[in-house]
């Protein structure tokens, strides 16, 4: 029986994990909190266009395509299949994003495959990835932004052409009209161009830049939409969550301090898995004397992986520095250097976009690009450790020899380094498996919300008097309640709660 190629094996593994996550998503009711209001608004809206235009001019956001998409899917449900349409869309988007991620790795050797398996565990295991699956309002727009960014990366890796440029401009416009994080599509395209992936040409990048300026003009000048204020929502700070009045009291006079914290905390959350949504959970767990594997594992795996990425980046920088200026200009960056450079750009931009409040969901795009950088770093590590003849794209034999020479003093021995890689792979895989626990817990939470909702709304006087709205709510509730779900609420067995954070 012929062996599958490393590329096919990587796609197979990506398909396996994305199908598992998609099944978990489909085994989950449509979310109630922050979602049913959007669905009811879509029901009230006469058309997709009305939904699109009606969302212009809101105070702090410009997200017309987000509202229009909810309406498109609402209409596609044809009055009865809301779970199928909303959850199905989420699942399909997730599978597409994971496959695009895998495509961007450009796997061609067995070492690439091993690094790809590692990268898929990092992608799905990093806590920022949960933002793309845990919630949906009723569409998960963070996943959409990640999807758009991965398309941009794949376009940048392509051979280019006018259609590639046009597609890049189109996805940028779609992304930016969906969420502010859509600006990251431009960052990905620009960083990829600077790093040497020029499938999106200078002309394409120029068009995207014009679109970017147009967006900024429309948002800040024409519509005069502001930016989120301190009074808008709670946010994590050091070891606790501060509510808007407390944020106002502490930082009302000097918001830049708070914004600076948010930017730094957001970047750190990707690099070190700490803080999470602005809160230093490890410190809090230590203070509460509740240090469990679920707290230690993320920070340990992230620290070592970030160190590995830094090692690969520094090795690359030293290689270029040691080459003559003429040679450096002539020779392009290899894939590893490109992944690391693009990750650095996306991380910085994503963290800045999180200035108003910290939330792991917002950093989900940077998290995915962290996994791409981890792919490059682990591949370098494997090439050094396993003394493999370099066959990966963009790696030249003489580079690997020099890389080994540069890295030996840092690592202090290849066998321990190999063991670190293996332990790291185990650690990230355990983190990745936590997604299943997270989704099962989330599913039953959504179901509980739906079960309790009619009684609560009636007692609070929120129950709609309009028969059409009432019918829709009852239909959504019926869809949510009729599915039997595993019960994670009773903490039996206990080990999942100790191993993974919900």
């Amino acid at each position: 029986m012929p062996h599958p190629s490393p590329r096919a094996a990587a796609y197979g593994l990506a398909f396996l994990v994305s199908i598992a996550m998609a099944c978990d998503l489909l085994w989950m009711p449509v979310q109630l909190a922050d979602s049913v209001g959007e669905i009811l608004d879509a029901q009230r809206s006469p058309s997709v266009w009305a939904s699109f235009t009606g969302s212009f001019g809101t105070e702090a956001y410009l997200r017309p395509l987000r509202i229009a998409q909810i309406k498109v899917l609402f209409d596609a449900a044809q009055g009865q299949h809301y779970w199928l349409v909303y959850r199905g869309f989420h699942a399909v988007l997730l599978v597409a994003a994971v496959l695009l991620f895998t495509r961007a790795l450009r796997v061609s050797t067995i070492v690439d495959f091993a690094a790809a398996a590692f990268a898929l565990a990092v992608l799905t295991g990093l806590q920022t990835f949960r933002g793309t699956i845990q919630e949906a309002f009723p569409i998960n727009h963070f996943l959409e932004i990640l999807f758009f960014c991965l398309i941009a990366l794949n376009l940048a890796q392509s051979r280019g052409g006018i259609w590639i440029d046009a597609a890049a401009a189109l996805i940028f416009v779609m992304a930016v009209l969906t969420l502010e994080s859509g600006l990251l599509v431009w960052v990905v395209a620009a960083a990829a161009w600077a790093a040497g992936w020029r499938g999106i040409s200078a002309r394409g990048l120029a068009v995207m830049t014009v679109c970017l300026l147009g967006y900024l003009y429309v948002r800040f000048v024409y519509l005069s939409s502001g930016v989120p204020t301190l009074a808008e929502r709670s946010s994590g700070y050091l070891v606790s969550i501060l509510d808007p009045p407390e944020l106002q009291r502490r930082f009302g006079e000097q918001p830049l301090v708070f914004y600076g914290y948010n930017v730094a905390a957001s970047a750190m959350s990707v690099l070190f898995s700490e803080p999470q949504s602005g809160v230093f959970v490890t410190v809090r767990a230590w203070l509460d004397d509740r240090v469990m594997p679920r707290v230690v594992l993320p920070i340990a795996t992230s620290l070592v992986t970030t160190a590995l990425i830094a090692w690969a980046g520094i090795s690359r920088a030293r290689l270029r520095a040691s080459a003559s200026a003429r040679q450096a200009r002539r020779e392009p960056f290899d894939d590893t250097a490109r992944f690391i450079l693009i990750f650095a750009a996306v991380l910085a931009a994503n963290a800045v976009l999180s200035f108003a409040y910290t939330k792991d969901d917002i950093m989900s795009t940077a998290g995915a690009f962290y996994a791409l950088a981890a792919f490059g770093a682990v591949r370098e590590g494997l090439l050094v450790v396993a003394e493999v003849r370099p066959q990966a794209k963009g790696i030249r034999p003489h580079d690997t020899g020099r890389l080994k020479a540069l890295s030996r003093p840092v690592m202090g021995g290849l066998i321990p380094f190999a063991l670190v890689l293996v332990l790291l792979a185990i650690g990230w895989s355990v983190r990745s498996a936590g997604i299943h626990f997270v989704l099962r817990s989330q599913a039953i939470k959504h179901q509980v919300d739906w079960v309790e909702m009619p009684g609560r709304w009636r007692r609070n006087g929120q129950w709609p008097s309009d028969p059409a709205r009432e019918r829709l709510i009852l239909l959504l509730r019926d869809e949510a309640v009729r599915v039997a779900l595993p019960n994670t609420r009773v903490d039996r067995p206990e080990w999942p709660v100790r191993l993974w954070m919900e």
Partner: protein
Amino acid sequence: MTRERIVTLVSLPSILVFTGWTAMLAIAAVTGRHPIWSLEPRNLPEAVAFRDPGAVVRRIDSGEDPNRAAEVRAGVALDETASLTPIEAAAAARQGEMVQLLLDLGASPDATVWQRAWCISDASAVRDVLEAHRPPGATEDCAVQ
């Protein structure tokens, strides 16, 4: 360590986890029971004690009586096996929301059940709900039990 062994060891954890994850979902789909979270309530009071309101609604929708007592296994709500009504099971599990849900779904405890529920739990969340739905003749005197 050979090249093949290192490469295999690095890729194996992901392969095992992703395969195991998919297999777990397949088992759950085929058998109807999740390999990890396999606790199944045997009756309505157990569903209440397991804090599984979805199962509670499905059982009542399928015709189970929200006032009928049934045997609840030891360790589920109380240390010993006991015959409890759903309201009593909710009180034993200290679940005020569950008591409220049962009342919303048509449970109507008589004075005896109300008093037993009151005395099983001293949780304020439970007692607040019970207090608001006290049937005639029900007292808070647990010594009378």
